């Protein structure tokens, strides 16, 4: 494991910019939800941005990623735009999945991003399958399957990890430990809360998930491990979600405001980068503020534009059910059905 990281202005500015983009997307989503332009579930990632961004800093789009429903920022870091991500939540045809998938379902197979999964834990075997394919295809890459501290109690993780270990698959099981699964704290859900030790012999480590450089170095190390053929690793990032679990959760009944404020004050992923930039005189406060303002303005403009975007067309209901075409029954038969055979 590396003990230090080398960086430069350019890198840090890029991290700062993208994490700010992520943060702003989530804040805007929060407002749009309250304005009833977004519906259903909406799981915000603010507080955890250093993980999505730090991972990307260590990986390439030849490496595969899969995560759960808290996926807006992973989508952005994997190459999607706030515009498409927000348009999706805003139920528009211009959204990342054309208004079909919604907040929990972003994908980008071109850049090896496989979602966006609403079933807790399901992404872990599927992610192991991504690693299987990489090994099958003899690619010098790894797959990353991200999960929460709550998801760690899904048995399917242990089934998949056992096969990953048996077959030495290049897979990183990345636990984003934000201390709670919905309203349940680590120790109320897990008899063993050292998530990195739960690989039944698979090596693992726990490390700070708030500092993008720490995440990056850990992921570089981990990717090399995989590519060297050493098999799976368990990585636990300690992190925190500022918002409640989803929009109906105020997020303050099972934890204290002090706890939240303490992380905001001392462990905020964006503030950590800001501080580094300022300390090294790579940017002035004003420059960074300008970036933030610019992003804010851009996303606000995006939102205004999205509002006028078309909703999915009625016939979109019937597309992408399968690749082969066949008769699809609508609510009333036959008037509302798609009668293509």
């Amino acid at each position, binding site marked *: 494991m590396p003990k230090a990281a080398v960086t430069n202005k350019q890198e840090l500015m890029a991290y700062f910019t993208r994490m700010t983009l992520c943060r702003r997307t989530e804040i805007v989503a929060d407002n749009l939800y309250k304005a009833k332009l977004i519906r259903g*579930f909406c799981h915000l990632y603010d507080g955890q941005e250093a993980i999505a961004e730090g991972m990307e800093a260590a990986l390439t789009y030849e490496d595969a990623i899969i995560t759960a429903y808290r996926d807006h920022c992973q989508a952005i870091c994997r190459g999607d735009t706030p515009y498409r991500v927000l348009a999706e939540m805003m139920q528009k045809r211009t959204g990342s999945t054309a208004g079909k998938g919604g907040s929990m379902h972003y994908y980008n197979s071109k850049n090896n991003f496989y979602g966006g999964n609403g079933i807790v834990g399901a992404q872990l075997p599927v992610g192991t399958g991504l690693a299987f394919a990489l090994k099958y295809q003899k690619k010098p890459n790894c797959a990353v399957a991200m999960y929460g501290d709550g998801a760690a109690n899904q048995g399917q993780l242990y089934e998949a990890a056992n096969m990953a270990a048996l077959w030495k698959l290049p897979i990183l099981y990345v636990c984003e430990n934000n201390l709670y699964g919905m309203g349940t704290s680590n120790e109320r859900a897990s008899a063993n809360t050292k998530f990195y030790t739960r690989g039944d012999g698979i090596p693992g480590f726990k490390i700070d998930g708030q500092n993008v450089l720490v995440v990056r170095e850990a992921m570089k190390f981990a990717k090399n491990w995989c590519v060297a053929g050493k098999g799976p690793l368990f990585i636990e990032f300690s992190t925190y979600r500022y918002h409640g679990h989803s929009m109906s959760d105020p997020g303050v009944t099972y934890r204290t405001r002090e706890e939240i404020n303490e992380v905001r004050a001392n462990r905020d992923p964006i503030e950590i980068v800001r501080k580094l930039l300022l300390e090294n005189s790579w940017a002035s406060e004003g420059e960074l503020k300008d970036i933030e303002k610019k992003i804010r303005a851009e996303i606000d403009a995006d939102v205004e534009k999205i509002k006028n975007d078309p909703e999915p067309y009625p016939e979109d209901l*019937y597309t992408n059910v399968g690749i082969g075409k066949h008769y699809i029954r609508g609510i*009333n038969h036959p008037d509302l059905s798609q009668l293509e055979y």
Partner: protein
Amino acid sequence: VEMTCRDAINTAMCEEIERDPNVFLMGEEVGQYNGAYKVSKGMYDKYGPSRIWDTPISETGFTGIGVGAGFMGLRPIIEFMTWNFSLQAIDHIINSCAKGHYMSAGDLKCPIVFRGINGVSAGVAAQHSQCFASWYASVPGLKVVTPWNIEDLRGLLKASIRDEDPVVFLENEMMYGVTMSAPDHIMDKDFVLPLNKAKIEREGTDVTITAFSKMVGFSLEAAEILKRDFDISAEVINLRVIRPLDRNTIVQSVKKTNRIVSVEEGWPQSGVGSEIAALMMESEAFDYLDAPLERIAGADVPMPYSVSIERLAVPQVDNIIKGVLKACHGKKQR
């Protein structure tokens, strides 16, 4: 009194927990968090951790635990945050539980209730919107209950908890917040409804509409409009229980109305409506049918997110009216 459907479930569970020390509630977030949908609000504070069990996100595990506890004589209420997550535990519901009484020639009994949100909610998309009524209702050894209003929720849930057989209890999130007025008798602590009877919610003479869960309300709305605008008198049957299906009530109704429309939110193929079509074939109703059964069902697609097309994937009042008009088209005299 006035109460929400959410509170109907809550009071039914509370009363049964107070009545019988073997009854307990187990599931994700049911306790200290007061329920992901606040259905079990206050119960942890009232009954404590010995009766209200918060679990990890381990559906296979806690469902199996519920089944084992049931075998030992307890009466578990196992909550799935939504029935979609029962897919992780379905082996226990079917193979460990439903078949247990039969495989053991009557030795094992499992008086358990599995409950939670089924079918379509609002904007939660493909993985959180599936209706499981027809799947579970195909399995011998289970009872499958589909309550609509507070009367159903109280009477059927209390009956399910007291029942000796395993019960699959399918709730609807969209109803949770709906307030209804509760006549005194349904607030009785011993108010139970039979687990093998449908209810005629509205009498009619021209056409029978069968529905369950939220679709009962839509069907009643449709019936009002059909009366007002088309002078069609629709009889609306709230199926209440999909297994065992109250075939008799449906058949008797069709013998009177000669026409039938089946309404459900779930996918059409081999759904509840298909079974009702088969019932028409297999009963004397066939000879009374003046038109083929009309089936109203969810569109045969995974649920999309955007409301603009979600709306087109789930039956609306309009769809029911359209189906009834088709069934009643060219009414011939007998």
